[in-house]
Protein backbone atom coordinates (compact mmCIF):
# COMPACT_ATOMS: atom_id res chain seq x y z
CA UNK A 1 0.00 0.00 0.00
CA UNK A 2 1.20 3.52 -0.73
CA UNK A 3 2.01 5.23 2.58
CA UNK A 4 1.13 8.64 1.16
CA UNK A 5 -2.36 7.34 0.42
CA UNK A 6 -3.32 5.43 3.53
CA UNK A 7 -5.70 6.21 6.39
CA UNK A 8 -4.20 8.17 9.29
CA UNK A 9 -5.73 8.79 12.71
CA UNK A 10 -6.86 12.31 13.50
CA UNK A 11 -9.61 14.00 15.44
CA UNK A 12 -11.36 15.84 12.62
CA UNK A 13 -14.94 16.20 11.38
CA UNK A 14 -14.24 14.09 8.29
CA UNK A 15 -12.48 11.36 10.28
CA UNK A 16 -15.61 10.99 12.41
CA UNK A 17 -18.07 11.30 9.52
CA UNK A 18 -19.95 8.22 8.38
CA UNK A 19 -18.15 6.73 5.31
CA UNK A 20 -21.36 6.14 3.32
CA UNK A 21 -22.45 9.77 3.78
CA UNK A 22 -18.91 10.81 2.92
CA UNK A 23 -19.25 8.94 -0.39
CA UNK A 24 -22.58 10.70 -1.06
CA UNK A 25 -20.91 14.05 -0.32
CA UNK A 26 -18.07 13.24 -2.75
CA UNK A 27 -20.63 12.29 -5.40
CA UNK A 28 -22.43 15.63 -4.95
CA UNK A 29 -19.22 17.67 -5.23
CA UNK A 30 -18.20 15.63 -8.32
CA UNK A 31 -21.55 16.46 -9.98
CA UNK A 32 -20.97 20.11 -9.06
CA UNK A 33 -17.56 19.96 -10.75
CA UNK A 34 -18.92 18.62 -14.02
CA UNK A 35 -22.08 20.78 -14.22
CA UNK A 36 -21.74 23.14 -17.19
CA UNK A 37 -17.99 23.33 -16.64
CA UNK A 38 -16.99 21.46 -19.79
CA UNK A 39 -17.09 24.50 -22.15
CA UNK A 40 -13.69 26.17 -22.65
CA UNK A 41 -14.43 29.65 -21.34
CA UNK A 42 -13.40 32.07 -18.61
CA UNK A 43 -16.43 31.58 -16.34
CA UNK A 44 -16.15 27.76 -16.25
CA UNK A 45 -12.49 28.06 -15.16
CA UNK A 46 -13.44 30.55 -12.43
CA UNK A 47 -16.28 28.30 -11.21
CA UNK A 48 -13.92 25.33 -11.00
CA UNK A 49 -11.26 27.41 -9.27
CA UNK A 50 -13.82 28.37 -6.61
CA UNK A 51 -14.76 24.71 -6.11
CA UNK A 52 -11.08 23.73 -5.86
CA UNK A 53 -10.39 26.44 -3.26
CA UNK A 54 -13.44 25.23 -1.32
CA UNK A 55 -12.14 21.64 -1.43
CA UNK A 56 -8.68 22.81 -0.29
CA UNK A 57 -10.23 24.67 2.66
CA UNK A 58 -12.19 21.54 3.60
CA UNK A 59 -9.00 19.45 3.28
CA UNK A 60 -7.19 21.72 5.68
CA UNK A 61 -9.92 22.70 8.16
CA UNK A 62 -12.44 19.85 8.27
CA UNK A 63 -10.01 16.98 7.50
CA UNK A 64 -6.88 18.32 9.24
CA UNK A 65 -4.68 16.97 6.45
CA UNK A 66 -1.26 18.69 6.61
CA UNK A 67 -0.08 20.50 3.49
CA UNK A 68 2.95 18.19 3.02
CA UNK A 69 0.80 15.07 3.26
CA UNK A 70 -1.64 16.51 0.72
CA UNK A 71 1.17 17.46 -1.71
CA UNK A 72 2.71 13.96 -1.45
CA UNK A 73 -0.66 12.34 -2.13
CA UNK A 74 -1.59 14.56 -5.08
CA UNK A 75 1.89 14.85 -6.69
CA UNK A 76 1.46 12.27 -9.48
CA UNK A 77 -1.95 13.58 -10.54
CA UNK A 78 -0.73 17.18 -10.29
CA UNK A 79 1.93 16.26 -12.86
CA UNK A 80 -0.76 14.72 -15.08
CA UNK A 81 -2.82 17.90 -14.71
CA UNK A 82 0.19 20.04 -15.74
CA UNK A 83 0.86 17.73 -18.72
CA UNK A 84 -2.76 18.05 -19.90
CA UNK A 85 -2.65 21.82 -19.40
CA UNK A 86 0.48 22.13 -21.59
CA UNK A 87 -0.92 19.68 -24.19
CA UNK A 88 -4.20 21.60 -24.47
CA UNK A 89 -2.52 25.03 -24.56
CA UNK A 90 -0.13 24.03 -27.36
CA UNK A 91 -2.25 21.64 -29.43
CA UNK A 92 -5.93 22.53 -28.79
CA UNK A 93 -6.88 23.00 -32.50
CA UNK A 94 -5.86 19.36 -33.18
CA UNK A 95 -8.21 18.09 -30.49
CA UNK A 96 -11.44 19.81 -31.54
CA UNK A 97 -13.70 20.44 -34.50
CA UNK A 98 -15.11 23.68 -32.99
CA UNK A 99 -13.96 27.22 -33.85
CA UNK A 100 -11.11 28.84 -31.92
CA UNK A 101 -9.33 32.21 -31.52
CA UNK A 102 -5.64 32.01 -32.38
CA UNK A 103 -3.24 33.96 -30.14
CA UNK A 104 0.14 32.71 -31.35
CA UNK A 105 1.36 30.26 -33.99
CA UNK A 106 4.78 28.65 -34.43
CA UNK A 107 5.02 25.73 -36.87
CA UNK A 108 2.58 23.08 -35.56
CA UNK A 109 2.17 24.82 -32.16
CA UNK A 110 -1.06 26.81 -32.03
CA UNK A 111 -1.86 28.68 -28.84
CA UNK A 112 -5.54 29.62 -28.62
CA UNK A 113 -7.87 31.28 -26.09
CA UNK A 114 -10.04 28.16 -25.95
CA UNK A 115 -6.97 25.92 -25.50
CA UNK A 116 -5.82 27.89 -22.46
CA UNK A 117 -9.29 27.78 -20.86
CA UNK A 118 -9.87 24.12 -21.70
CA UNK A 119 -6.41 23.16 -20.39
CA UNK A 120 -7.00 25.05 -17.14
CA UNK A 121 -10.49 23.57 -16.84
CA UNK A 122 -9.25 19.99 -17.27
CA UNK A 123 -6.30 20.52 -14.92
CA UNK A 124 -8.62 21.91 -12.24
CA UNK A 125 -11.14 19.12 -12.72
CA UNK A 126 -8.40 16.50 -12.22
CA UNK A 127 -7.15 18.32 -9.12
CA UNK A 128 -10.67 18.54 -7.64
CA UNK A 129 -11.56 14.89 -8.25
CA UNK A 130 -8.17 13.68 -6.97
CA UNK A 131 -8.44 15.90 -3.89
CA UNK A 132 -11.87 14.41 -3.12
CA UNK A 133 -10.39 10.91 -3.40
CA UNK A 134 -7.50 11.89 -1.15
CA UNK A 135 -9.94 13.29 1.43
CA UNK A 136 -11.88 10.03 1.35
CA UNK A 137 -8.89 7.66 1.54
CA UNK A 138 -6.93 9.58 4.19
CA UNK A 139 -9.90 10.07 6.51
CA UNK A 140 -11.72 6.74 6.19
CA UNK A 141 -10.81 3.72 8.27
CA UNK A 142 -11.31 0.65 6.01
CA UNK A 143 -12.94 -1.41 8.78
CA UNK A 144 -15.38 1.38 9.57
CA UNK A 145 -16.20 1.75 5.90
CA UNK A 146 -17.18 -1.92 5.59
CA UNK A 147 -19.31 -1.64 8.74
CA UNK A 148 -21.00 1.45 7.35
CA UNK A 149 -21.65 -0.21 3.99
CA UNK A 150 -23.34 -3.12 5.77
CA UNK A 151 -25.34 -1.09 8.28
CA UNK A 152 -26.04 2.22 6.54
CA UNK A 153 -25.94 1.32 2.84
CA UNK A 154 -27.55 -2.10 3.60
CA UNK A 155 -25.00 -4.11 1.61
CA UNK A 156 -25.69 -7.83 2.37
CA UNK A 157 -23.43 -8.99 5.16
CA UNK A 158 -22.01 -11.88 3.11
CA UNK A 159 -20.69 -9.32 0.60
CA UNK A 160 -19.53 -7.11 3.48
CA UNK A 161 -17.61 -10.07 4.86
CA UNK A 162 -15.93 -10.52 1.46
CA UNK A 163 -14.64 -6.95 1.71
CA UNK A 164 -13.41 -7.65 5.26
CA UNK A 165 -11.71 -10.81 4.04
CA UNK A 166 -10.02 -8.88 1.22
CA UNK A 167 -8.66 -6.39 3.77
CA UNK A 168 -7.28 -9.22 5.89
CA UNK A 169 -5.70 -11.00 2.93
CA UNK A 170 -3.67 -8.01 1.71
CA UNK A 171 -0.62 -8.56 3.99
CA UNK A 172 -0.59 -12.35 3.61
CA UNK A 173 -0.90 -12.25 -0.18
CA UNK A 174 1.84 -9.65 -0.33
CA UNK A 175 4.04 -11.90 1.85
CA UNK A 176 3.31 -14.88 -0.41
CA UNK A 177 4.20 -12.83 -3.49
CA UNK A 178 7.50 -11.78 -1.91
CA UNK A 179 8.30 -15.42 -1.10
CA UNK A 180 7.72 -16.41 -4.73
CA UNK A 181 9.85 -13.58 -6.15
CA UNK A 182 12.60 -14.33 -3.58
CA UNK A 183 12.53 -17.97 -4.67
CA UNK A 184 12.97 -16.76 -8.25
CA UNK A 185 15.87 -14.50 -7.27
CA UNK A 186 17.65 -17.34 -5.44
CA UNK A 187 17.50 -19.27 -8.72
CA UNK A 188 18.91 -16.29 -10.61
CA UNK A 189 15.65 -15.20 -12.21
CA UNK A 190 14.72 -11.53 -12.06
CA UNK A 191 13.19 -8.71 -14.04
CA UNK A 192 16.38 -6.94 -15.05
CA UNK A 193 17.53 -7.19 -18.67
CA UNK A 194 15.06 -9.72 -19.98
CA UNK A 195 12.84 -9.57 -23.03
CA UNK A 196 9.07 -9.45 -23.35
CA UNK A 197 8.65 -13.22 -23.81
CA UNK A 198 10.81 -13.98 -20.74
CA UNK A 199 8.90 -11.38 -18.74
CA UNK A 200 5.58 -12.98 -19.65
CA UNK A 201 6.97 -16.41 -18.72
CA UNK A 202 8.13 -14.99 -15.39
CA UNK A 203 4.72 -13.40 -14.91
CA UNK A 204 3.15 -16.82 -15.43
CA UNK A 205 5.50 -18.53 -12.96
CA UNK A 206 4.63 -15.90 -10.34
CA UNK A 207 0.90 -15.64 -10.89
CA UNK A 208 0.04 -19.34 -11.10
CA UNK A 209 1.61 -20.31 -7.70
CA UNK A 210 0.08 -17.21 -6.14
CA UNK A 211 -3.38 -18.08 -7.47
CA UNK A 212 -3.07 -21.75 -6.52
CA UNK A 213 -2.10 -20.95 -2.93
CA UNK A 214 -4.96 -18.41 -2.89
CA UNK A 215 -7.48 -20.98 -4.12
CA UNK A 216 -6.27 -23.49 -1.51
CA UNK A 217 -6.68 -20.90 1.20
CA UNK A 218 -10.15 -19.96 -0.10
CA UNK A 219 -11.18 -23.63 0.05
CA UNK A 220 -9.97 -24.03 3.64
CA UNK A 221 -11.53 -20.77 4.82
CA UNK A 222 -14.88 -21.38 3.13
CA UNK A 223 -15.17 -24.90 4.59
CA UNK A 224 -14.37 -23.51 8.05
CA UNK A 225 -16.92 -20.72 7.60
CA UNK A 226 -19.67 -22.98 6.29
CA UNK A 227 -19.13 -25.45 9.12
CA UNK A 228 -19.58 -22.58 11.60
CA UNK A 229 -22.90 -21.65 10.00
CA UNK A 230 -21.87 -18.54 8.07
CA UNK A 231 -24.91 -17.26 6.19
CA UNK A 232 -27.35 -19.44 8.14
CA UNK A 233 -29.55 -16.43 8.92
CA UNK A 234 -30.63 -13.54 6.70
CA UNK A 235 -29.81 -11.01 9.41
CA UNK A 236 -26.91 -11.05 11.80
CA UNK A 237 -26.12 -9.48 15.14
CA UNK A 238 -23.83 -6.45 15.24
CA UNK A 239 -21.21 -5.68 17.85
CA UNK A 240 -20.15 -2.22 16.66
CA UNK A 241 -23.36 -0.45 15.81
CA UNK A 242 -22.97 2.54 13.50
CA UNK A 243 -25.16 5.55 14.17
CA UNK A 244 -25.18 8.47 11.78
CA UNK A 245 -24.69 11.75 13.61
CA UNK A 246 -27.13 14.53 12.80
CA UNK A 247 -24.19 16.84 12.00
CA UNK A 248 -23.15 14.46 9.18
CA UNK A 249 -26.69 14.53 7.77
CA UNK A 250 -26.85 18.33 8.00
CA UNK A 251 -23.50 18.65 6.20
CA UNK A 252 -24.66 16.46 3.30
CA UNK A 253 -28.08 18.19 3.13
CA UNK A 254 -26.39 21.62 3.01
CA UNK A 255 -24.19 20.40 0.13
CA UNK A 256 -27.30 19.07 -1.64
CA UNK A 257 -29.09 22.42 -1.25
CA UNK A 258 -25.98 24.20 -2.49
CA UNK A 259 -25.99 21.92 -5.57
CA UNK A 260 -29.68 22.62 -6.23
CA UNK A 261 -29.10 26.37 -5.78
CA UNK A 262 -26.15 26.18 -8.20
CA UNK A 263 -28.29 24.39 -10.81
CA UNK A 264 -30.98 27.08 -10.32
CA UNK A 265 -28.40 29.85 -10.91
CA UNK A 266 -27.12 28.11 -14.02
CA UNK A 267 -30.62 27.70 -15.43
CA UNK A 268 -32.17 31.08 -14.69
CA UNK A 269 -29.28 33.53 -14.37
CA UNK A 270 -26.86 31.84 -16.81
CA UNK A 271 -23.82 32.49 -14.55
Amino acid at each position, binding site marked *: *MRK*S*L*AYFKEDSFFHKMDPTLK*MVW*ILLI*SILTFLKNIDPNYSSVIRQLIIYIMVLIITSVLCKIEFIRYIKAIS*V*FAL*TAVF*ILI*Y*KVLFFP*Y*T*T*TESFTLIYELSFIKITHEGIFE*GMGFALRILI*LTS*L*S*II*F*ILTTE*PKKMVQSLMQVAKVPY*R*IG*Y*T*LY*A*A*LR*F*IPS*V*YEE*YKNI*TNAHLIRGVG*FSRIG*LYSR*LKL*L*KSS*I*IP*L*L*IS*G*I*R*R*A*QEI*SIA*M*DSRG*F*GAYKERTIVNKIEIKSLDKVFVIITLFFLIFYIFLLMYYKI
Partner: protein
Amino acid sequence: MEKKKKYYFSTFNLVLMAIIAVIGGVINGTFMYNLIQPFKPLFTFLGPISWVPLSGLYVLWSIVARLLIRKRGAGTLYGLIQGFVEMLAGNRLGPWAILFAGMEGLLVDIGFEIIRDKTKFLSSLLGAALANLAADEIYFFIFGLTSSYVLYVGGIVAIISGIIFAGLLGWLIARAIYNTGIIKVANP
Protein backbone atom coordinates in the same frame (compact mmCIF):
# COMPACT_ATOMS: atom_id res chain seq x y z
CA MET B 1 -34.18 -34.62 -3.61
CA GLU B 2 -31.49 -32.02 -4.06
CA LYS B 3 -31.57 -29.19 -1.54
CA LYS B 4 -32.08 -25.77 -3.09
CA LYS B 5 -29.09 -23.48 -2.61
CA LYS B 6 -29.73 -20.61 -0.20
CA TYR B 7 -27.38 -18.13 -1.85
CA TYR B 8 -26.41 -17.61 -5.48
CA PHE B 9 -22.71 -17.12 -4.69
CA SER B 10 -21.33 -19.77 -2.34
CA THR B 11 -18.97 -18.89 0.51
CA PHE B 12 -16.13 -20.36 -1.56
CA ASN B 13 -17.03 -18.08 -4.49
CA LEU B 14 -16.97 -15.01 -2.25
CA VAL B 15 -13.70 -15.86 -0.49
CA LEU B 16 -12.12 -16.70 -3.85
CA MET B 17 -13.23 -13.33 -5.22
CA ALA B 18 -11.65 -11.59 -2.22
CA ILE B 19 -8.37 -13.45 -2.72
CA ILE B 20 -8.20 -12.83 -6.48
CA ALA B 21 -9.05 -9.16 -5.87
CA VAL B 22 -6.14 -8.88 -3.46
CA ILE B 23 -3.78 -10.77 -5.81
CA GLY B 24 -4.89 -8.51 -8.66
CA GLY B 25 -4.40 -5.43 -6.50
CA VAL B 26 -0.92 -6.53 -5.33
CA ILE B 27 0.21 -7.55 -8.83
CA ASN B 28 -1.19 -4.40 -10.46
CA GLY B 29 0.46 -2.25 -7.83
CA THR B 30 3.92 -3.87 -7.83
CA PHE B 31 4.72 -6.54 -10.41
CA MET B 32 2.79 -5.00 -13.32
CA TYR B 33 4.55 -1.66 -13.00
CA ASN B 34 7.99 -3.33 -13.35
CA LEU B 35 6.70 -5.42 -16.22
CA ILE B 36 5.32 -2.64 -18.39
CA GLN B 37 7.73 0.25 -17.76
CA PRO B 38 10.48 -0.88 -20.21
CA PHE B 39 7.91 -1.28 -22.99
CA LYS B 40 6.29 2.13 -22.71
CA PRO B 41 8.91 3.88 -24.92
CA LEU B 42 8.04 1.44 -27.72
CA PHE B 43 4.65 3.12 -28.06
CA THR B 44 5.68 6.78 -27.90
CA PHE B 45 4.71 7.09 -31.59
CA LEU B 46 1.08 6.93 -30.39
CA GLY B 47 1.53 10.30 -28.66
CA PRO B 48 -0.76 10.98 -25.69
CA ILE B 49 -2.17 7.45 -25.81
CA SER B 50 1.14 5.56 -25.49
CA TRP B 51 -0.18 3.91 -22.31
CA VAL B 52 -3.16 2.29 -24.08
CA PRO B 53 -1.38 -0.74 -25.72
CA LEU B 54 -0.65 -2.23 -22.29
CA SER B 55 -3.86 -1.13 -20.56
CA GLY B 56 -5.45 -4.55 -21.11
CA LEU B 57 -3.32 -5.96 -18.30
CA TYR B 58 -5.50 -4.12 -15.81
CA VAL B 59 -8.63 -5.99 -16.97
CA LEU B 60 -6.86 -9.36 -16.77
CA TRP B 61 -8.10 -10.14 -13.24
CA SER B 62 -11.76 -9.66 -14.03
CA ILE B 63 -11.41 -12.26 -16.79
CA VAL B 64 -9.54 -14.69 -14.53
CA ALA B 65 -12.18 -14.28 -11.80
CA ARG B 66 -15.07 -14.75 -14.27
CA LEU B 67 -13.43 -17.90 -15.67
CA LEU B 68 -12.75 -19.41 -12.25
CA ILE B 69 -16.18 -18.50 -10.83
CA ARG B 70 -18.49 -19.58 -13.61
CA LYS B 71 -21.62 -17.74 -12.59
CA ARG B 72 -23.49 -14.83 -14.12
CA GLY B 73 -22.65 -11.58 -12.36
CA ALA B 74 -19.38 -12.92 -10.95
CA GLY B 75 -17.43 -10.41 -13.06
CA THR B 76 -19.45 -7.46 -11.76
CA LEU B 77 -19.26 -8.45 -8.10
CA TYR B 78 -15.58 -9.25 -8.48
CA GLY B 79 -15.00 -5.83 -10.11
CA LEU B 80 -16.67 -4.03 -7.21
CA ILE B 81 -14.53 -5.93 -4.70
CA GLN B 82 -11.34 -5.27 -6.66
CA GLY B 83 -12.22 -1.58 -6.90
CA PHE B 84 -12.60 -1.51 -3.12
CA VAL B 85 -9.20 -3.17 -2.65
CA GLU B 86 -7.56 -0.85 -5.19
CA MET B 87 -9.03 2.18 -3.46
CA LEU B 88 -7.55 1.05 -0.15
CA ALA B 89 -4.25 0.19 -1.83
CA GLY B 90 -3.91 3.82 -2.91
CA ASN B 91 -5.70 4.23 -6.23
CA ARG B 92 -6.00 7.98 -6.70
CA LEU B 93 -9.45 7.64 -8.22
CA GLY B 94 -10.69 6.95 -4.69
CA PRO B 95 -14.34 5.80 -4.47
CA TRP B 96 -14.59 6.14 -8.26
CA ALA B 97 -12.19 3.18 -8.55
CA ILE B 98 -15.04 1.00 -7.23
CA LEU B 99 -17.39 2.23 -9.97
CA PHE B 100 -14.78 1.88 -12.73
CA ALA B 101 -13.79 -1.64 -11.72
CA GLY B 102 -17.46 -2.59 -11.29
CA MET B 103 -18.21 -1.29 -14.79
CA GLU B 104 -15.30 -3.30 -16.22
CA GLY B 105 -16.62 -6.39 -14.48
CA LEU B 106 -20.13 -5.74 -15.80
CA LEU B 107 -18.82 -5.51 -19.37
CA VAL B 108 -16.89 -8.75 -18.88
CA ASP B 109 -20.17 -10.36 -17.80
CA ILE B 110 -21.94 -8.90 -20.85
CA GLY B 111 -19.22 -10.33 -23.10
CA PHE B 112 -19.72 -13.75 -21.53
CA GLU B 113 -23.48 -13.47 -22.10
CA ILE B 114 -23.21 -12.45 -25.76
CA ILE B 115 -20.97 -15.38 -26.72
CA ARG B 116 -21.49 -18.60 -24.82
CA ASP B 117 -18.89 -20.97 -26.24
CA LYS B 118 -18.03 -24.14 -24.39
CA THR B 119 -14.37 -23.34 -23.77
CA LYS B 120 -15.17 -19.71 -22.91
CA PHE B 121 -12.30 -18.65 -25.15
CA LEU B 122 -14.29 -16.31 -27.40
CA SER B 123 -16.32 -15.06 -24.43
CA SER B 124 -13.08 -14.07 -22.68
CA LEU B 125 -11.82 -12.21 -25.73
CA LEU B 126 -15.09 -10.33 -26.22
CA GLY B 127 -15.53 -9.52 -22.53
CA ALA B 128 -11.96 -8.26 -22.27
CA ALA B 129 -12.25 -6.16 -25.45
CA LEU B 130 -15.50 -4.52 -24.26
CA ALA B 131 -14.22 -3.86 -20.75
CA ASN B 132 -10.90 -2.39 -21.86
CA LEU B 133 -12.53 -0.28 -24.58
CA ALA B 134 -15.03 1.25 -22.14
CA ALA B 135 -12.43 1.83 -19.41
CA ASP B 136 -9.96 3.50 -21.78
CA GLU B 137 -12.61 5.68 -23.48
CA ILE B 138 -13.72 6.93 -20.04
CA TYR B 139 -10.11 7.75 -19.19
CA PHE B 140 -9.81 9.67 -22.50
CA PHE B 141 -12.78 11.83 -21.49
CA ILE B 142 -11.52 12.33 -17.93
CA PHE B 143 -8.12 13.48 -19.19
CA GLY B 144 -9.58 15.63 -21.94
CA LEU B 145 -8.22 13.55 -24.82
CA THR B 146 -11.29 13.96 -27.00
CA SER B 147 -9.86 14.36 -30.50
CA SER B 148 -11.18 11.91 -33.08
CA TYR B 149 -7.64 10.44 -33.44
CA VAL B 150 -7.54 9.53 -29.75
CA LEU B 151 -11.12 8.24 -29.65
CA TYR B 152 -10.85 6.05 -32.78
CA VAL B 153 -7.19 4.96 -32.83
CA GLY B 154 -7.12 4.74 -29.03
CA GLY B 155 -10.33 2.70 -29.11
CA ILE B 156 -8.95 0.22 -31.63
CA VAL B 157 -5.68 -0.13 -29.70
CA ALA B 158 -7.68 -0.61 -26.47
CA ILE B 159 -9.70 -3.42 -28.07
CA ILE B 160 -6.54 -5.17 -29.33
CA SER B 161 -4.82 -4.71 -25.96
CA GLY B 162 -7.89 -6.07 -24.15
CA ILE B 163 -8.04 -9.12 -26.43
CA ILE B 164 -4.34 -9.97 -26.04
CA PHE B 165 -3.40 -8.93 -22.51
CA ALA B 166 -6.71 -9.58 -20.75
CA GLY B 167 -8.73 -12.06 -22.83
CA LEU B 168 -6.02 -14.36 -24.15
CA LEU B 169 -3.69 -14.10 -21.15
CA GLY B 170 -6.59 -14.47 -18.70
CA TRP B 171 -7.88 -17.53 -20.51
CA LEU B 172 -4.37 -19.11 -20.52
CA ILE B 173 -3.98 -18.42 -16.79
CA ALA B 174 -7.40 -19.93 -16.02
CA ARG B 175 -6.59 -22.97 -18.17
CA ALA B 176 -3.28 -23.43 -16.33
CA ILE B 177 -5.19 -23.30 -13.01
CA TYR B 178 -7.74 -25.88 -14.22
CA ASN B 179 -4.90 -28.10 -15.49
CA THR B 180 -3.46 -28.30 -11.97
CA GLY B 181 -6.75 -29.91 -10.88
CA ILE B 182 -7.24 -27.60 -7.90
CA ILE B 183 -10.64 -26.50 -9.26
CA LYS B 184 -12.67 -29.30 -10.72
CA VAL B 185 -14.76 -27.88 -13.53
CA ALA B 186 -14.53 -28.60 -17.25
CA ASN B 187 -12.72 -26.34 -19.73
CA PRO B 188 -10.88 -23.95 -20.25
